[in-house]
């Protein structure tokens, strides 16, 4: 009880912190040491997908737009000074900030933006562009003058503007790309607030202040040092002050431990996270080809009680459908409770679940449930689900696999059911709903089903530039997806950051991928 009061006091202090921090004048100097739980395999933004890449690498690069960290999901210019979208939503014109320098002293022009986006949209032979599919609507990129870049779309795309704020869309030097399209894999040359100094593999990464950064007076820090440390060693390092923060997120247990040990030396900030765990079942295999069985599995889960219990031990908390609770296009609670499996009358839901299993001819269903052997939050959520299914007479064997084997099973379809996840840098339905689109259109659909209604609704919401119409289409998509229960959402993640109070100017966002250029961060030493 006492500990909880301390935690609540710390969270409350943190909620007020941005106000008091805002009143303070940022101080220059110092090195920010932060922990990163893993390590980037190479240095190419366009090829990577992990937070372990973003946290050390993003401070070296700029993007065309970026999310306003304090006002997510609002968008502000990064390299772009201003932008215009044509009335037909087919032309995006960006005016670039003048005198932007790369770390080698060369000046950034629209040619660099064009070359970088060409690399994403039409990668040269041998270059991997992971997010190529997300930019398939870009038909042409024009550079009428050195400070203007124009993107012409083949079709309107409601999420495209936000996509230009993707932290993965680093702008590279066109000259370097011309010499070697794979230059960014092994070199860091950006226009971001910090210059690359060194990367000691397996140990740490150092960046130093870029004196010619285009935002006057920024960055405030002299340097940053990302230390690759995970697990208990990371929590110990935080407690000892060896690092001031870890930007991905802490479990409730680690939060409580740190607050108990450090008291008012640390702040705690929390938010719903753009990540959730979902149950995928191979619809190619019996009995999961039967929608009654899938729906029964969803109906058995008491998400509302589960969220309360699990949030005490795992980094999950909010109940939501296919989009993050709290996001403008996400279902409200009043809508959510009408979806199968989301009713607050769990007794009734479970009776219905049992009936459906009976009708499907599998009243004593047994299956193997694969899970990732990552303790947080996969293990507690997996155990929770198995207990929920036990309550409708379903017997489940929990098999936790190391990530390599888990991924192989999901990709090959060599499993019955498993705990999958959906996690990205922003809430936009274009990004998050792709998981639910037919397997012949989406390589991340591990349910291996094809449903043209979902594909059609996905396409329509993507093209709907009217927000109300888009919201309606997303609701229809969600309703159909949850009724069919091909992929069953469980509980959304909850991001908890514990940081030493001398770190200022950093804002929590619902994504651990955004807001990490460190341009505004300073140390109150």
């Amino acid at each position: 009880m006492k500990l909880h009061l301390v935690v609540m006091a710390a969270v409350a202090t943190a909620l007020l912190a941005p106000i008091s921090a805002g009143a303070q004048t940022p101080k220059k100097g110092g090195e920010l040491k932060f922990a990163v739980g893993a390590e980037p395999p190479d240095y190419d933004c366009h090829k990577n997908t992990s937070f372990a890449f973003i946290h050390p690498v993003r401070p070296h690069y700029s993007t065309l737009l970026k999310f306003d960290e304090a006002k997510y999901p609002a968008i502000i210019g990064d390299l772009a000074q201003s932008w215009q979208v044509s009335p037909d939503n087919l032309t995006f014109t960006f005016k670039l900030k003048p005198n932007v320098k790369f770390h080698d002293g060369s000046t950034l022009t629209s040619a660099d933006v064009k070359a970088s986006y060409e690399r994403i949209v039409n990668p040269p032979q041998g270059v991997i562009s992971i997010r190529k599919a997300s930019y398939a609507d870009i038909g042409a990129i024009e550079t009428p003058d050195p400070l203007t870049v124009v993107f012409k779309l083949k079709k309107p795309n409601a999420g495209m503007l936000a996509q230009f704020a993707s932290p993965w869309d680093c702008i590279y030097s066109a000259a370097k790309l011309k010499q070697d399209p794979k230059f960014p894999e092994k070199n860091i040359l950006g226009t971001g607030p910090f210059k690359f100094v060194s990367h000691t593999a397996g140990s740490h990464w150092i960046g130093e202040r870029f004196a010619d950064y285009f935002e006057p007076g920024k960055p405030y820090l002299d340097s940053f040092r990302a230390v690759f440390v995970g697990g208990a060693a990371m929590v110990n390092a935080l407690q000892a002050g060896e690092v001031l923060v870890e930007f991905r997120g802490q479990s409730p247990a680690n939060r409580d431990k740190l607050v108990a040990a450090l008291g008012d030396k640390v702040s705690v900030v929390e938010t719903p996270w753009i990540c959730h765990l979902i149950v995928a079942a191979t619809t190619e295999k019996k009995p999961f080809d039967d929608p009654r069985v899938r729906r029964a599995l969803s109906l058995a889960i008491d998400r509302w009680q589960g969220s309360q219990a699990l949030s005490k031990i795992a980094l999950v908390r909010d109940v939501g459908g296919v989009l993050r609770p709290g996001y403008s296009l996400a279902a409200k609670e009043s809508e959510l409770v009408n979806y199968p499996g989301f009713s607050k009358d769990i007794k009734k839901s479970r009776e219905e679940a049992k009936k459906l299993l009976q009708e499907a001819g599998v009243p004593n269903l047994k299956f193997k449930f694969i899970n990732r052997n990552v303790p947080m939050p996969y293990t507690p959520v997996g155990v929770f689900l198995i207990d929920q299914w036990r309550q409708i007479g379903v017997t489940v064997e929990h098999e936790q696999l190391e990530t390599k084997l888990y991924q192989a099973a999901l990709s090959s379809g060599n499993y019955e059911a498993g705990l999958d996840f959906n996690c990205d840098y922003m809430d936009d339905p274009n990004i998050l709903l792709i998981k639910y689109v037919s397997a012949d259109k989406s390589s991340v659909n591990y349910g291996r089903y094809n449903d043209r209604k979902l594909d059609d609704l996905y396409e329509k919401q993507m093209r709907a530039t009217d927000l109300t119409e888009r919201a309606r289409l997303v609701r229809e998509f969600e309703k159909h997806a949850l009724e069919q229960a091909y992929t069953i959402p469980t509980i959304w993640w909850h991001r908890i950051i514990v940081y030493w109070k001398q770190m200022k100017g950093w804002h929590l966002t619902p994504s651990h991928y955004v807001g990490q250029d460190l341009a505004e961060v300073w140390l109150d030493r």
Partner: protein
Amino acid sequence: MLRYTVQRLLMMIPTLFGVAVLVFVMLRVMPGDIVELRLRAEGAQVTPEILAMERARLGLDKPMLAQFFDWMGGLLTGDFGISMWTGRPVAHEIAIRLELSLELAILATILATLIALPLGTLAALFKDRWPDRVISVFAIAGLAVPSFWFGMIIILVLLWNFNWIPPLTFTPLLEDPVKNLSQLIWPALAVGYRYSAVATRMTRSTILEVLQEDYIRTARAKGVFERLVVARHAMRNAMLPVVTVIGLEFAFLIGGLVVTEQVFNLNGIGKLFVNVLARGDYTMIQALVMLVAAFFIFVNFVVDLLYAVLDPRIRYG
């Protein structure tokens, strides 16, 4: 002696070749795919074409035999290849971690030897009396307590009492000896304790055995001081099995400190081993297994040579 040395060195070749074949085949029959893991495990929407392109780039689309000969060809020319995960040369990835692992192994060996030899001898000389019993408890506890657990206790004691933990990043010994030792002395202690326990037990039992020998009785009958009997006659002859144990433990420390390195966040070979195994980075795993195998063989060879130094009756030729 020279002939023996050359023979032993040549024998390393078939042994290492056997290890190479074994590790190569075993890795290929294990499920999992580094390309899937690298590009899809974070949920990215990656097309089969991209996966195929990456597999081709890494040479994974070639027949197994071709992959094996590519690797063997590289080994013969001293090229261990490129890490499939990072794209950096395997030799570089290992080299930057080997210094730490070697230094930790040496430190732990020094600590263990400094503890084990006097304690083991003392226990033997005071057999079944209180010093022997105290030392036995110390040694048995050392055997029972896992090194990583002892390491965790050390960290927690330092953290809760001094609000301090050993530095997270490695500083070479010659660059800053104080910083270097402030990082490595703690894991060396954690590992050295268990290591010393093994060596203490071995020292005690071999000295007890040697003390029953006729030549010891003869030395005592000749009136040689007990201290000299122990130091010159007993200890030297008792050292053969102790040296073997120390040698094997030392070899194990290179690449074997998997959990201890995680606990202390040490950027060593053990931690690298865990990471590359989890990723299925074939070229790295193959090189690391070869390195550890070669190291074991080499240390055994050095131990054999030490036998001749310790026991003049042993002659190789």
